[in-house]
């Protein structure tokens, strides 16, 4: 009787996972394999094509444009991840302390997360092109007088500002919920010791928050590495190709240009890179969590 029950249970489990599995295989794994297959061809996206062996992969490592897109993407992702996590941690601490209009403020700070990246990009593009230079020339602040998006050196910062503006919201909420899992009596104990605010934060809050830090780090690194919408709306990879992210290059030359095969190879490598980084991050933060 009991055994029969177990079998029924197991069968049900398997039955329940099948729809998801079928969909996933059909619309994720199969296209992924197809795409990976194209990476060994010189397919343009239409017409006939030939297999070219590993040529695309060899080219990847000698292609300066791909190299630059990796440099930009990593620069952007590292700066973005650090900034986002610092800002959202500060915001979370602020929004979690005794303040007035707490829920209203939280509501406002979460707002950027619900707005579409493309439209936000268009709006910020206007701000960077017209409003900030106008402010700069009115106040005679030299470095503001030119649009940041037009500068080969600094355009990436413009993209970064918008990316961070949007990403902070989500991480803040995650940190706030992390802070709320910390029982209040721990702080009271800290108070008794007469620990300074910084000490309390460093010795009590941060260790308790570690799982949330790792979640946030992994999430924001991944999102920052895949930056696309902001580039599309703000710079289209310019000026002087200084803001071409990997995702943007794959889309632009794979879809618009005739490099589908080559960019598939780029995407395969990119996939491996992202997975490696995430696994590495997980391993490191897990270790940290255990240590504390």
């Amino acid at each position, binding site marked *: 009787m009991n055994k029969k*029950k177990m079998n*029924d249970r197991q*069968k049900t*489990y398997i039955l329940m*996972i099948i*729809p*998801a599995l079928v*969909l*996933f295989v*059909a*619309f*994720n794994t*199969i*296209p992924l394999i*197809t*795409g*990976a297959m*194209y990476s060994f061809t010189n397919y343009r*996206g239409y017409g006939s094509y030939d297999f070219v062996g590993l040529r695309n992969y060899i080219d990847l490592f000698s292609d300066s444009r791909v190299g630059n897109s990796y440099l930009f993407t990593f620069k952007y992702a590292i700066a973005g991840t650090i900034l986002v996590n610092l800002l959202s941690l500060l*915001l979370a601490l*602020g929004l979690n*302390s*005794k303040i*007035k209009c707490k*829920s209203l*403020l939280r509501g*406002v700070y*979460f*707002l950027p997360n*619900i707005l*579409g990246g*493309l*439209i*936000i990009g268009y*709006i*910020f593009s206007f701000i960077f092109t*017209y*409003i900030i230079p106008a*402010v700069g020339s*009115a106040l005679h602040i030299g470095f503001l007088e030119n649009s940041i998006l037009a500068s080969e050196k600094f355009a990436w910062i413009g993209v970064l500002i918008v990316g961070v*503006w949007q990403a902070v919201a989500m991480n803040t*909420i*995650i940190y706030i*919920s*992390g802070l709320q899992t910390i029982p209040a009596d*721990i702080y009271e104990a800290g108070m*008794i*010791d007469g620990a300074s605010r910084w000490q309390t934060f460093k*010795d009590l809050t941060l260790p308790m928050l570690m799982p*949330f830090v790792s979640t946030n780090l992994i999430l924001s690194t991944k999102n920052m590495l895949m930056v696309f*919408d902001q580039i599309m709306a703000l710079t289209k990879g310019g000026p002087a190709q200084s803001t071409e992210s990997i*995702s943007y290059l*794959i889309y632009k030359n*794979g*879809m618009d240009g005739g490099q*589908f095969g080559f960019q*598939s190879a780029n*995407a395969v490598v*990119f*996939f491996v890179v992202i997975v490696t980084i995430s696994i590495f991050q997980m391993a490191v933060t897990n270790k940290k969590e255990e240590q504390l």
Partner: protein
Amino acid sequence: MSGSKRSFVPQPIEAKVKSADEIKNDKGGKSSVFLTILLVLGCVTILFPLYMTIIIAFKSPSEMTNDINGALSLPQSFSLDNFAEAMRVTDFWHSLGNSIVITAATIILSLVIHSMAGYAIGRNMNRKKGFKMIYFYIVSGMFVPFAILMMPLVKQTANLGLDNMAGVVILYTVFYMPMNVMLYSGYMKNVPMAMEEAADMDGSSAWRTYWTIIFPMMKPMHATVAVLTALGTWNDVMTPLVIMSGSDNVTLPLAQLNFQTQFGTNYNLAFASYLLALLPIVIFYIICQKQIIGGVANGAVKG
């Protein structure tokens, strides 16, 4: 470390705690005003772009001059002409309807399919290798760049007759599967097995137990999944652009992209249409703000 410090706490603990509390309250009282002001000031960075969008959307092109005043002063009159024109050009109600249908259908499918998978995985992944492998297999999908899937998917959906809204819904269900399965299976860790065992005793089948007891119990996670999935699908441009191209149906963000290329010179009209595209989700957000923030937070804690 902190534990060892705690043992040094001297005897009259009651009094000490009280005074600490008082100090904390005092400090809290002062800093709350300061912090509140600081945080309100911070809000300006969030609200300024939106303020600007609103006023530019109401202005006429002649009111736009190249100084700060031209961009930031209030419009002479709050005329709705720009909005009427933008709505006409983007076929607003039709695109809005499409966006709603796609998002709603995606949510329903996600709740059903992902919760089942998450449940099955969450109940078995610690005991059975197979389920654990399936878990990592699905979650790794989170890291696949869309660009590599795009072209094969275009071909595949077309071959299956899914180059339409239904196809977009199915693709979204797959795209959000890694995150949602992770959330659901994580949530199951907190639900004791005793629930099912009790139901089993009553002779209920596992299938029925799931739908009568477990599924309703996952309600907080359903809210989270619905919110996160909705935010992602509502704002997405690429999927409908490549999958539904050629059909007459566009979604709200897609209409926006079209608008941008066609009417880019008229900033007032463009901003009116941006605002129209942002409005539905902002309204929805204002109504369901607690649930949305709560949902996201829940995902972070339980997932």
